[in-house]
C-alpha cells in the first residue's frame, strides 16, 4: 500500500485548511522508524545493549511497574471510551492519514497489551475487548508509531478525560529502552549530556570561543561591551539555554538578544559549561531516572556557582521540565532567592523589564519582518509564564508587539492551547524521520501559508530550539524561505536600544525636532 503511493510533494499540499481531515491510509507510515540505539548508546543510560532474550516477559513486567507508579498511566489506560474526539487532533494523523497516528489508536497499541495482561476482560475474552499478546509485530508497531508522537499534548486538550498520549508514548519508550530497544537519536544525546554537558557535545573551549566571538560582534555592532559570561562564580543568575543557541541560526540571534537584555537589566549572570543544556531528553524517552540525572546537573551548577536565580532560554520541552518538573526532580531550591520565580523564563524576564520601563525599542528596526508566532507545544500545554493562566501565550506576543510593527496571529484553531506541533518534537528531530517530520508539519505550514497570503507575513517567531531547527529544514520543503523562522529574542535584539549604543544615539537624534 505504502510503496504504491506517489512521493509526497509538500508544495502541492501547502494550500488548504490546516486541520482538514484526511482519508484513512492504513499502514502508510508503518515503515517510519528511527535508528535503533547501539549498545554504546544504551549502556550509559542503564539500559541493556540489545533486545534481551526474554523481552516479552520483561516488557510486560515493566508495564506493570509503570502502571503501579503512574496514576496518569493507569487512569488513561482504563478510561478511554473510544468516543473519537481525539481522532482528528494529531498533526501526524492530519499530515499522513495513517489511522495509527490517531491518538486513541496510538494509545491502543499499548492499551491492548495492558488489557491482555492486566485486566480481567482482556484475560478472559481478549477478542471482545481488543486485547492482544505482545508479539514481535506489536513491538514493531510500538517502535514505529511511538516514534511518531512528539508528546505535544494536543490530544489531551480535546479528550473529555484529559488522556494525554504523551504519557503513553513515554511509557512505551521506557519499556522499549528497558528491553534493549532504544532510539539512537535520543539516547546518544542523553549520553552526550552526561559526558560533556550538552546535547550537541560542545566542549567548554568551543563554548568559550563562541561566546567571546559574540561579545566582539555585539560591541562592533552597538559600541557597547555586552558580556556573555561563562562559569563566573558570584553571578546572581544562572542562565540555562538549549545548546543550539550556542551553535546555529536563528538560535544564536536569540542568544544575542538574551545577552543584550541581561546587560540592560544590569544583572550579574553566567552560563555554565556543566549545565550548558536546557533540554532534557530524559523526558522524551520516558525515563524519569535519566530525566532526573540531567535535571540534577542544573542544580549542581547553580550550587557550585552560588547563584541566586535560575533563568531559562527559549526551549519548549526544556521549559516544561524546568517549570513543571525541576523542583520535584532536583529541588527544593532553598538556596535561591524566592522573590523571583524558580525557575524564570527569559520571556518573563524581558517582559518584566518592559513593564518596569527599563527597555527601549526602535520597532522600525524590525520593519522587514511581518511576523506571526508559533506557540511551541510544551510551552503552550505543559507550562506557564507570568502569574495568570495563558501567560505563556500573551507574554511572548507582548514582546513581539513591543519590538515589531507588524504582527498577525495564525488561525485560532492552530495557536494558543490548540497550537500545532512543529512536527519535530519529542525526540523526532533526526534525519531518518524526515518523512514524518515533513508530513507532520503540514498543518502548521498551511496555517502559515494562510497568514502569508492574507497579511503578507514573512517570518514566524518561536521560543523552542526544536521548533527552530525543525522549521529551518521544513520551511523550504513547503516553499518558504529557510530563514523565515526567527527567535523571539532575535526580534528583541534587533530593536533594543542599549543605553549608550550607536542605535540609541541615532534614535534619539531622530526623535529630537531639528532646531
Amino acid at each position, binding site marked *: 500500500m505504502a510503496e504504491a503511493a506517489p512521493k509526497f510533494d509538500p508544495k502541492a499540499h501547502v494550500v488548504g485548511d490546516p486541520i482538514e481531515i484526511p*482519508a*484513512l491510509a492504513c499502514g502508510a507510515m508503518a515503515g517510519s522508524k528511527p535508528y535503533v540505539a547501539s549498545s554504546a548508546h544504551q549502556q550509559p543510560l542503564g539500559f541493556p545493549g540489545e533486545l534481551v532474550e526474554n523481552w516479552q516477559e520483561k516488557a510486560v513486567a515493566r508495564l506493570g511497574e509503570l502502571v503501579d*507508579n*503512574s*496514576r*496518569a498511566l*493507569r*487512569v*488513561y489506560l*482504563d*478510561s*478511554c*471510551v*473510544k*468516543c*473519537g*474526539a*481525539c*481522532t482528528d*487532533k494529531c498533526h501526524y494523523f492530519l499530515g499522513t492519514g495513517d489511522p495509527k497516528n*490517531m491518538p486513541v*489508536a496510538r494509545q491502543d497499541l499499548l492499551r491492548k497489551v495492558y488489557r491482555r495482561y492486566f485486566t*480481567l*476482560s482482556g484475560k478472559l475474552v481478549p*477478542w*471482545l*475487548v481488543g486485547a492482544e499478546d505482545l508479539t514481535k509485530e506489536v513491538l514493531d508497531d510500538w517502535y514505529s508509531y511511538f516514534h511518531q508522537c512528539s508528546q505535544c*499534548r494536543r490530544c*489531551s*486538550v*480535546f*479528550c*473529555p*478525560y*484529559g*488522556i494525554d498520549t504523551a504519557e503513553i508514548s513515554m511509557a512505551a519508550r521506557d519499556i522499549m529502552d528497558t528491553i534493549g530497544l532504544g532510539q539512537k537519536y535520543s539516547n546518544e544525546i542523553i549520553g552526550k549530556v552526561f559526558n560533556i554537558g550538552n546535547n550537541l557535545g560542545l566542549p567548554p573551549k568551543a563554548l568559550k570561543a563562541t561566546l567571546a566571538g559574540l561579545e566582539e560582534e555585539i560591541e562592533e555592532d552597538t559600541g557597547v561591551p555586552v558580556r556573555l559570561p561563562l562559569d563566573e562564580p558570584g553571578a546572581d543568575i544562572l542562565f540555562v539555554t538549549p545548546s543550539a543557541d550556542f551553535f546555529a541560526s536563528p538560535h544564536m540571534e536569540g542568544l544575542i538578544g538574551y545577552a543584550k537584555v541581561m546587560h540592560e537589566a544590569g544583572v550579574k549572570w553566567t552560563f555554565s559549561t556543566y549545565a550548558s543544556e536546557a533540554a532534557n531528553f530524559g523526558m522524551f524517552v520516558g525515563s*524519569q*531516572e535519566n530525566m*532526573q540525572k540531567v535535571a*540534577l546537573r542544573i542544580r549542581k551548577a547553580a550550587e557550585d556557582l552560588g547563584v541566586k536565580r535560575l533563568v531559562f532560554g527559549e526551549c519548549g520541552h526544556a521549559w516544561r521540565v524546568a*517549570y*513543571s518538573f525541576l*523542583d*520535584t*526532580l*532536583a*529541588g*527544593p531550591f532553598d538556596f535561591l532567592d524566592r522573590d523571583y520565580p*524558580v525557575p524564570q523564563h527569559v520571556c518573563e524576564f524581558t517582559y518584566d523589564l518592559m513593564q518596569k520601563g527599563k527597555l527601549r525599542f526602535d520597532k522600525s528596526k524590525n520593519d522587514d519582518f511581518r511576523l506571526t508566532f508559533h506557540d511551541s507545544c510544551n510551552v*503552550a*500545554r*505543559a*507550562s*506557564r509564564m507570568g*502569574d495568570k*493562566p*495563558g501567560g*505563556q*501565550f500573551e507574554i511572548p506576543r507582548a514582546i513581539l508587539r513591543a519590538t515589531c510593527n507588524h504582527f498577525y496571529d495564525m488561525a485560532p484553531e492552530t495557536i494558543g*492551547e490548540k497550537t500545532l506541533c512543529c512536527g519535530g518534537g519529542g525526540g523526532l528531530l533526526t534525519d531518518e524521520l524526515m518523512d514524518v517530520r515533513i508530513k507532520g508539519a503540514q498543518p502548521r505550514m498551511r496555517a502559515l501559508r494562510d497568514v502569508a497570503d492574507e497579511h503578507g507575513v514573512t517570518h514566524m517567531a518561536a521560543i523552542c530550539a526544536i521548533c527552530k531547527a525543525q522549521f529551518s529544514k521544513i520551511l523550504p520543503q513547503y516553499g518558504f524561505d529557510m530563514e523565515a523562522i526567527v527567535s523571539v529574542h532575535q526580534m528583541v535584539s534587533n530593536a533594543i536600544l542599549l543605553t549608550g549604543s550607536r542605535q540609541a544615539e541615532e534614535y534619539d537624534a531622530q526623535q529630537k525636532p531639528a532646531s
Partner: protein
Amino acid sequence: MRTLVFASLFYFASFTLAAGLAFRVWLYARTPAPLKIPTTPAPLTRGGVAVRMAREVVLFESLFKSNKWIWLFGWLFHVSLAAVLFRHLRYFLQPVPALVALEQPIGVLAGFAMVAGLLALWGRRVVVPRIRYISRASDHLMLVLLIAIGGSGLAMKFVTHTDIVSLKAFFLGLMYLDWKPLPDDTILAIHLSLVAALMIIFPFSKLLHAPGVFFSPSRNQADDSRERRHAPRGLLAAGRKG
C-alpha cells in the same frame, strides 16, 4: 424460583459494582502521581481545579471543544441517563420524595432522549471511518446493551405495562431483607437482567471513565508547580540520594 434468581442476581450485581468500583478508586488513589502534568492553561488553585472538573463533568467542556456532534449526542445521553436514574428512585424510596414525583414526566421524555443519543453515537461509530477503525466488538456491544436497557424500559411504559407496585415491593424487599415476589413479566425480566449485566461489567470495562475522570492528573492538578513543592512519595526520592 424467578424471584430467587433475580434477588441473588441483584445482590451479586450490586456487590460487584460497589466492591469493584471501590477497589478501582482505591487503586487510583494510592497510585502515585510523580510529576505535575496538568494540561495548561490550568487553574492555579485547588478551588479553580474543582470548577474546571465541574465544567468537565457537567458540561463536557473538552469534548465540546473537540467535536460538536459527539458532544451533543454524548451529553444528551448522559444527562438523559441521569434524569432516568433519578426517575427510577421512585422504585426504591418509600414514600416517594416530592422532587422525584415531580420529575416523572421529564424522566419519561429523557428515556427517549437517552435512546436517541445512544443510537446517534452508534451511528457515528458505524458510519465515520475514523471511529469505526478504533471500535472493537465491546464498544459496539456496550451501546447495544444500553440501547436494549432503554428500549425495554420504554416498552414497559408504552407497550405493556408491568406491575410496578409489586416490582417496588420486590426491590424494597431486597433492600430491607424482607423478600417479596417479582412480577412475572418477560420484558421486565429482560430489562432487569440487562441492568444487572451492566452493573457487573461496569468495574471491568471502559465505564471506568466515570471514576477515572476525577483522577486524571491532566485535569485534576493545579498549575502551581513554582508556588508549591510537589514531592510525592517513592519513585523519585531514590534518584535524589544516589
